[in-house]
């Protein structure tokens, strides 16, 4: 019988050792053709050795185990390993992808090994729909992360670049080609146009109220009208007011 090769991928050395030792007990004939300590190495080693099985840790630097599985797209059978990830585990239970929880117990490993041996003996190909399943899993996980809006403002300071969380910004004000970022107690100039920023911010949290002004909705204390009928925004904790141009009055009229 042809020898069966497996690849182990985990960024933690002890955990690779442990799995290797446990596999040696449960499946002495299995050849470990490579050990990867990150996702990229795993991908290279799979391409080089063409193992029948890949044990992939989910959280790895470089590429995650799931990203590796997607890239190899059914080239070998995949068993995911995770310490704890309620979402992923739930997803695995729905899909037919095999997974192991760390620390891997002998009983659980025996079950997995038995299933792998049966599939390989039946010479069934790695299920082609597996990559679809992983695709769906990844899409589900990505959904949870939400849209990629701007979350940090990089500001040049005398001792380096400071990162200000966008939630702390009261408003952005255009200033020539740059933009002034105003927080509760500071004003900083950044090298970005207001237009660039407008496109990157979460529109639910930041409202454009003027061609040159974007305000953080959570920092608005009051919206009123001036004697000339223009909208005026009063802020929490800051004394200045912001003008709402006619073009953007609709932002408040919906309320």
């Amino acid at each position, binding site marked *: 019988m042809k020898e069966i090769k497996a690849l182990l991928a985990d960024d933690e050395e002890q955990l690779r050792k442990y799995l290797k030792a446990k596999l040696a007990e449960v499946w002495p004939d299995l050849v470990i053709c490579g050990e990867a300590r990150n996702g990229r190495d795993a991908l290279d080693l799979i391409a080089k050795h063409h193992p029948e099985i890949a044990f992939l840790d989910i959280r790895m630097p470089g590429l995650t185990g799931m990203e590796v599985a997607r890239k190899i797209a059914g080239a070998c059978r995949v068993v995911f390993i995770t310490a*704890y990830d309620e979402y992923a585990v739930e997803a695995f239970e729905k899909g037919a992808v095999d997974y192991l929880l760390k620390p891997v117990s002998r009983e659980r490993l025996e079950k997995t090994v038995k299933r792998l041996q049966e599939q390989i003996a039946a010479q069934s190909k790695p299920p082609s729909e597996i990559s679809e399943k992983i695709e769906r899993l990844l899409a589900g996980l990505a959904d949870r992360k939400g849209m990629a809006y701007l979350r940090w403002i990089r500001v040049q300071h005398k001792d380096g670049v400071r990162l200000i969380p966008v939630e702390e910004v009261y408003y952005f004000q255009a200033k020539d080609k740059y933009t002034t970022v105003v927080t509760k107690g500071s004003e900083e100039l950044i090298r970005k146009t207001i237009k660039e920023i407008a496109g990157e911010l979460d529109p639910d949290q930041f409202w454009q109220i003027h061609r040159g002004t974007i305000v953080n909705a959570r920092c608005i204390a009051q919206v009123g009208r001036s004697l000339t009928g223009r909208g005026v925004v009063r802020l929490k904790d800051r004394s200045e007011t912001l003008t709402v141009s006619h073009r953007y009055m609709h932002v408040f009229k919906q309320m």
Partner: protein
Amino acid sequence: MVISGKKINWKKFLSALAVTAGLNTLIAIFLTYLGHGKGFFINFIFSQSIGLSICAWVLAGHAFFPALSPLSTLLVTGITMCVGTIAGSFLGSRLAGITLSAFLQGEPIPLAQLVVLGLLFGSIITYFFFSREKMARADALVQEERIKRLSIEKESLETRLRLLQAQVEPHFLFNSLSNILSLLDTDVGNGKEMLTDLIRYLRASLSRTREKTTTLGQEMELVRAYMNIYKVRMGDRLRYRVEMPNHLQDRPFPPMLIQPLVENAIKHGLEPKIEGGEIAVLVQDEKDLLRLAVCDTGVGLDEKSVAGIGLANIRERIQTLFDGQGRFILEENSPSGLKAILEVPNERNQGPPRG
């Protein structure tokens, strides 16, 4: 507090007199309208004298005899009103230059009638000021309640944030336990050491949630235990150092502020980086402030990184713990990684004396 206050509040005293004077004028107009007395001028003098006298006596009475019970308040009010009425009547007659009986148009028992009138008038004034006082007191009570509620809210917010921060991450726990399990097969000595560190970390995490302050020394021990665990797990991918002046060991410090920064640096900075990197925890005793920095050489923050929940939590805690006197700054480290800096007021007097 005019009535029942031990100290006389002159501003309120005068404002009470002014209101009374206005009332008196109305009474004088009313009496004149009824055709009573000898014209508005005389009525005005009498009503002002009697009214102001009652008011002054009642207020003075309450200022000097604090209200001990409803009965004593009633007694003080009654007596001062009678005295005020009589004194005011005589004052009025002197000022107007006519006798009392002339003013009262020869009624049979003028003084008794005057006293009844005075009592009525005084009761109205007393009631008026008492209710005003009561309202002010109710307002003060509401204010007090609000302050109390706010401070309770602040307290519970801090507790909640601390609990959140002290949560042991399951991923961390299970990965660490798996490592120990493996070490028990291959390197028992190291396994025992790691288990000791994990116990130290767990004990600190669990008990810290109930404590409000700990010391910088204890916090650093927790941080070291935490990094030791990661050192075993990550091997040569992690290097770390802790630098803190020795005299800061016993300085009181809020729990679970430094460790989450280290956790953040490892989780979001070094773990995702293939070659790993270094963490430096630096504590500096500066003149007016204590500066704590957790610097890593990890992957750093992308402008769209979501790595903010733990950090936002710390920011909020710094605000509540130090009443806006503390700062949390995030900077980019060069050539890569992040510097998380806490700047808090340097309260050196609070520490126990060093032997």
